[in-house]
């Protein structure tokens, strides 16, 4: 009868049936009773491969639950759909949502905080990386289970450093140092710049990170964590410093603009069009592997006027729907726990370059092996673990985060086109304030 009720996935069911059959033909009865839980994710490419492998492992590791992974397009697209099915029977048991959707998810009322399962079961979360958990903990509650987490790091071309007379083992740490190094690293050939010194992807996340590492806030009310955020503050001095850095370097011709596309900036680095750039920790392994030169990994730079605070976690986490059958929630919970095992995390870390939520994974043999091969990977973990917990590094909570982020990107692009940094930031802040206000009005 289970087959009849769920027509949409009957094909899927057959597949699992078959795989089970091949595994153990005697357990046909049990197969029918398996609880199925749908898992919406937004991983494409290699990430999808890895996630499906992990799910497969989970499905085979026990005989009570079947997780069905379903790709839903980008985070935005997945979220769009979730908005309409949230709270209904159609909602998936688990949905992967990016970090900026956190506030929305909490407010939506469509999700069950994982904290309730943690409490119920007394699950020990202290084994998990604190700096990651911080982000998703709101009002002392862990809302979602961190999954693919990343932080920004700076990648640089060691060969180019040597060529320019810089110490490849001692990368620049502060904005001023970056500026100076970039000056040396830039290679020009007439009008054409063959190699830029430094680049940042036109992506709001990096600006957020550069503000946070200076201890700056993105929005008021402690980044919206003590109270509902009502105003953007990223146009403060910390933000201004970041934008001034970009502006000055851009004007000096040492800053390479490679757009908003992850692949473009990586290609630029790998083809030696830029010597230093900020990347996600998830991209490190691929870049190191592909680049035809020695790649160095460093912490993201900070302003010399403040001390380094560290980074905010990025990426996405897994949310559990409420309003669905208890059994499915249980399945989701079991899966989430499975994910946290060092083995799963180790595989995930190696496959994708995302952090292991469970630091114990780093002790796994396969990880150590990998680190041996790419010592650079360890830098990313160090940076995360050295981060000072604060509202700044905990990250902002705003319901209109995507919009705010977009505004920041626009501001960044405007600066690259010559707009005054303060003006660009103020404009972005103003726009963001408007949306925040509207959202607050509509959601009263």
């Amino acid at each position, binding site marked *: 009868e289970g087959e009849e009720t769920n027509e*949409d996935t009957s094909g899927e069911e057959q597949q699992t049936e078959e795989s089970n059959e091949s595994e153990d033909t005697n357990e046909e009865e049990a197969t029918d009773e398996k609880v199925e839980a749908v898992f919406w994710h937004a991983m*494409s490419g290699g990430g999808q491969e890895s996630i499906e492998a992990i799910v497969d492992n989970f499905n085979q590791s026990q005989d009570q639950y079947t997780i069905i992974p379903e*790709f*839903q397009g980008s985070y935005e697209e997945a979220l769009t759909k979730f908005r309409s099915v949230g709270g209904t029977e159609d909602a998936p048991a688990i949905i992967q949502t990016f970090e900026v959707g956190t506030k929305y998810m909490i407010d939506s009322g469509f999700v069950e905080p994982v904290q309730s399962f943690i409490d119920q079961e007394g699950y020990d979360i202290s084994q998990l990386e604190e700096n990651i958990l911080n982000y998703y903990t709101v009002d002392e509650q862990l809302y979602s289970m961190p999954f693919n987490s*990343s932080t920004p790091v700076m990648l640089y071309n060691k060969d180019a450093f040597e060529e320019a007379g810089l110490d490849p083992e001692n990368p620049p740490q502060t904005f001023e140092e970056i500026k100076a190094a970039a000056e040396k690293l830039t290679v020009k050939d007439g009008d054409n710049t063959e190699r830029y010194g430094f680049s940042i992807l036109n992506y709001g996340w990096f600006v957020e990170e550069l503000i946070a590492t200076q201890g700056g806030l993105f929005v008021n009310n402690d980044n919206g964590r003590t109270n509902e955020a009502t105003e953007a503050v990223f146009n403060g001095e910390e933000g201004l410093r970041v934008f001034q850095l970009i502006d000055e370097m851009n004007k000096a011709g040492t800053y390479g603009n490679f757009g908003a596309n992850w692949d473009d900036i990586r290609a630029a680095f790998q083809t030696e069009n830029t010597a230093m750039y900020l990347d996600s920790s998830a991209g490190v392994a691929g870049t190191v592997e592909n680049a035809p030169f020695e790649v160095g990994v460093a912490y993201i730079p900070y302003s010399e006027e403040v001390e380094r605070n560290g980074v905010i976690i990025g990426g996405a986490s897994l949310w559990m729907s409420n309003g669905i059958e208890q059994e499915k929630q249980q399945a989701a919970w079991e899966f989430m726990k499975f994910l946290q095992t060092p083995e799963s995390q180790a595989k995930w870390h190696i496959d994708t370059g995302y952090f292991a939520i469970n630091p114990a994974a780093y002790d796994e043999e396969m990880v150590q092996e990998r680190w041996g091969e790419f010592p650079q990977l360890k830098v990313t973990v160090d940076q995360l673990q050295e981060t000072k917990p604060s509202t700044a590094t905990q990250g902002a909570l705003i319901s209109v985060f995507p919009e705010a982020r977009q505004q920041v990107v626009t501001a960044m692009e405007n600066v690259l086109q010559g707009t005054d940094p303060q003006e660009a930031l103020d404009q972005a802040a103003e726009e963001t304030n408007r949306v925040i206000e509207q959202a607050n009005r509509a959601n009263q």
Partner: protein
Amino acid sequence: MKILRPTITYMLLILTAVIVFFPVVYAFFISFMSGAELLQGKFIPETFHLDNYQKAFERLPLAHYLWNSFFVSTVVMLGQLLVSALAAYAFVFIPFKGRNFVFFIFISTMMIPWEATMIPNFLTIQQLDWINNYQSLTIPFFAIAFGTFLLRQHFLTLPKELKEASDIAGLRSFKFFWKVVIPYCRTSFITLGAYGFLTTWNMYLWPLLVTNNDQVRTVQIGLKQLQTQEMATDWGVVMAGVIIVIIPTLILLFLGQKQLQKGLAQGALK
């Protein structure tokens, strides 16, 4: 003078053909390249190995996607043909009052941007419980103003005596539609069919919205799935995906090119 003209013509033909077709050839070559070759910025791969294609097929159930695309496109094509033909028939052969007004309304729907209606449509589909169904991928596209317009233009060229002759014989109007109008206007049906097939095949955003799993997904989503955001994209595989996606439509287009051209021109002329 006699030789000059064809020579110039050929030169221009070849030059423009190279430019127009370049992106396709480029994608084709890239689909055989490894990551390293790509970074070197090569145009022609050293060896034509099929690794990327293999990866593309391994990573995703592309064959199933292709089948879905084919199925959905075919159904939409047939649906469009039927619905548009019925409407066009009414506009041409039934002298009802307000015909021109209704036709104008139909035509004006061509101007409604699809994106503008997408949100409510999605909610409708959800209420109908059509998510993850072939219905949601097909039925909303059955009625297209362009199709009605194209067929109407062609129906108008049908001599009115044919209709009168069947009136005198006493044929039912539906039978006339079935036995005379449809066979008579074969070209425009082929045209509209090809047009509908191609546009449906190429849809991306809507299938993504209304489907949740591999069961009914189409190949364009597969193409998107090959690309990544935060992690490095494997361009060779993506291009292999591109080639896989465009080949069926290109073949269809090459086969139906003549008919298509005839039919489209007919619709264009008032």
